[in-house]
């Protein structure tokens, strides 16, 4: 679907027209749980961008240089999730050693990322679409940025919302979903921009 697209187009379509959160609904769980404060969402967003870019690169290499030649494509789910989990673990250890400030900012979010469906989703999408290495990395990075844009916007809106009166049954998740719906509508407005 995206094979003939330029790198630039892939990057922007991953952020706006095909936002991984608002059109593919991936990463909703942590999206709803974390988006209460702007600061936390900023940290999680940064961690997602980083992990997503690196894991889509790693998984691309693993898929095309190990799994395809060995004819083990059906094991891809297990391999991808192991690569993601291992990568996250290693990054966590490195950050802990190297920088205390960075660890304080990102550390608590890293374990959450292993089970963030957006990361695995991005890896599976890149395989289904048959992207090449560069396209996959750009797609991974763009999706991460798109996810961060969405969660930041959401956190900002939710902070304002805390003062307003919401119908009883809609409090919490309900109203968050309504906001996400309106944001998805707004993002649909971008759909004509990239052909």
């Amino acid at each position, binding site marked *: 679907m995206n094979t003939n697209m330029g790198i630039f187009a892939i990057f922007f379509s991953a952020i706006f027209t095909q936002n991984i959160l*608002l*059109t*593919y*609904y*991936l*990463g*909703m*769980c942590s999206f*709803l*749980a974390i988006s209460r404060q702007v600061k936390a969402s900023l940290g999680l967003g940064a961690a997602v961008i980083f992990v997503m870019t690196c894991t889509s690169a790693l998984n691309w290499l693993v898929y095309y240089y190990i799994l395809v030649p060995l004819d083990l494509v*059906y*094991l*891809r*789910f*297990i391999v991808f*999730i*192991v690569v993601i*989990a291992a990568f996250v673990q290693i990054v966590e250890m490195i950050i802990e050693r190297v920088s205390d400030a960075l660890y304080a900012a990102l550390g608590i979010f890293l374990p959450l990322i*292993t*089970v*963030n*469906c957006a*990361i*695995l*989703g991005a890896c*599976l*999408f890149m395989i*289904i679409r048959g992207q090449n290495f560069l396209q996959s990395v750009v797609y991974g990075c763009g999706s991460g940025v798109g996810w961060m844009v969405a969660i930041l916007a959401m956190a900002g809106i939710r902070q304002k919302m805390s003062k307003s009166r919401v*119908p*009883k*049954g*809609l*409090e*919490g*998740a*309900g*109203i968050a*979903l*309504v906001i*996400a*719906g*309106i944001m*998805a*509508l707004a993002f*649909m407005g971008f759909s004509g921009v990239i052909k």
Partner: protein
Amino acid sequence: MRGKTKKVFLENLGRGNPVFIQILGICSTLAVTNVLKNTVIMCCGLVFTTTLSNFTVSLLRRWIPSRIRMMVEVLIIACYVIIVDIAIKATLPDISRQLGPYVGLIITNCIVMGRTEAFALSNPPGLSLVDGFSSGLGYSYVLLIIAFFRELLGSGSVWGVRMLGNWWVNWSIMVMAPGAFFMLAVFIWIVKGSILKPDQDKKGT
């Protein structure tokens, strides 16, 4: 034992429902509910995975070191998901293509992970089997209701058969992303507002 089994079973269908009370597994709830047929397949896959992975984790719970338990759980879940994926691909290739990555994403579905983590690690296998099965069912019936309305309003049909006459103008927004968010929000609203009593839904996030 019998009473407890029944309690566990009903808990997951009603007050502890994974979708509208605990808000877990939302990703796939939204993604596969635009057509009823896909939803049914997805639900079967999920029920299969939660039931068996809960059972397996519970069987192995004494031997799983607690430091790496997440990893072990994910691997067990992934094995079952691969079985589901291959089975769907072999029997229903069209639907497999439409579902795309979402079958694989059952692995990171928070319901499966959440149940193994919260229930199977501390309960015997038989009870875990029931718990997994019923949380799968609790998830499924919510999805089926949402999918029914989205397909009816969005394409005027149910299970691919046209239900509403030619006078019906499709709400095409319902089969697209925003419709899913609104539909789930309305569903949660109705359930929380009218069926459950307000003082008992403390579990909500």
